[in-house]
């Protein structure tokens, strides 16, 4: 049985667990930005010093570039992203009716490439995919996150939450152990945040490049010595969805800067 079908079935058999129980209340939710020092904040605040803006500019160029055997650009269907893409990223991952499960913004971009441009998918973490998703998500900067509100997403949010709460890896730690119970503390001197996914894709000084939320989740999994899930796997998508719904109300910051 596929992962997605199993979730749909579980939703039929079991009442979905009460959402938001034991979670960070809305007024206490804080972006990773508020945990950073003044230099890193200044870097994010000023578009001319924010390295993520270079990717946004690349994405803007790709938006109007024709691609695939359909010889169409994103702009040919969607027009000016400044109006058509406003607020879109704040709702992702979103439920895809024909697939019957949620898809991330990266996956939506590749679905558009396959279905409407007849182009090959862009690899995860490739410069072009990061640039396009940074450009699209940038059109939501300042918008409050609302992902997960769609009632059809309920079982998938619950599944992501189960993953967030589950201990794993040789160190036997769950996301919740660090990001719900120990934010504001220090792990080997580095502040632990609430893991609010407000700024993705974002520029991490440690990476020296832009990276996706999935890249971040995979490195937390490797950190607890667990086998990280593959890019685009249902597990990462539901975790991403849960994190976005857990960040409900926080403003989008793409492209954010993090240490």
């Amino acid at each position, binding site marked *: 049985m596929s*992962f997605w079908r199993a979730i749909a079935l579980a939703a039929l058999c*079991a009442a979905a667990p009460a959402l938001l129980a034991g979670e960070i209340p809305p007024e206490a939710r804080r972006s990773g930005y508020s945990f950073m020092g003044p230099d890193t904040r200044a870097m994010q605040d000023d578009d001319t010093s924010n390295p993520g803006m270079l990717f946004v500019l690349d994405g803007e160029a790709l938006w109007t570039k024709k691609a695939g055997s359909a010889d169409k650009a994103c702009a040919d269907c969607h027009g000016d992203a400044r109006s058509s893409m406003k607020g879109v990223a704040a709702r992702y991952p979103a439920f895809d009716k024909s697939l019957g499960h949620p898809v991330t913004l990266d996956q939506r971009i590749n679905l558009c490439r396959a279905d409407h441009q007849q182009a090959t998918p862009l690899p995860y973490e490739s410069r072009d995919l990061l640039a396009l998703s940074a450009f699209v998500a940038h059109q939501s900067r300042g918008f409050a996150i609302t992902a997960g509100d769609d009632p059809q997403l309920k079982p998938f949010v619950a599944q992501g939450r189960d993953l967030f709460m589950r201990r794993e*890896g*040789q*160190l036997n730690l769950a996301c919740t152990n660090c990001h719900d119970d120990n934010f504001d503390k220090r*792990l080997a001197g580095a502040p632990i945040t609430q893991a609010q996914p407000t700024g993705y894709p974002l520029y991490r000084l440690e990476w020296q490049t832009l990276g996706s939320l999935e890249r971040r989740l995979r490195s937390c999994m490797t950190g607890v*010595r*667990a086998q990280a899930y593959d890019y685009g796997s249902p*597990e990462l998508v539901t975790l991403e969805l849960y994190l976005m719904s857990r960040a409900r109300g926080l403003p989008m910051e793409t492209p954010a800067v993090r240490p």
Partner: protein
Amino acid sequence: MWPPRSSRRTRAAAALIAASLVFATGAQAEGPVPYRIAGDGIPESLTGAPGDATRGRALVLARTTTCILCHSGPFPETRFQGDLAPDLTGAGNRWSVSQLRLRLVDASHFNPETIMPSYYRADGLVRVGRNFAGKPILSATEIEDIVAFLATLRD
């Protein structure tokens, strides 16, 4: 990929995968040696010999051992200490060698909800990374060295 909300099937599958790995490599995983818990401790050395406190100190400070990620202690040479866990200063006053050994082997014996990993355990874990599967975090010798060092932390 595991089916949701069916931990028994997950565990069965994990056991199957673990078994087939051992079978495939034909080698015994470096699993923990048996030990005896008495009261709230493990009275005998896991190696049958006393540990080396100097090596133990170096291990506690090594990031790969992970202690210093959560704990702080009397280690003036490093700025990068954690504060998710108690300061280790004086641990040798608060705990006997036997208790310290059990704490490292399986901290959940003292507090089932603890976030402190069990350093000498290789079963009952979920999705352990390929490079770490079937092995405890630390070897018996490393545990004994760290226990010997912690016992010297007296104020």
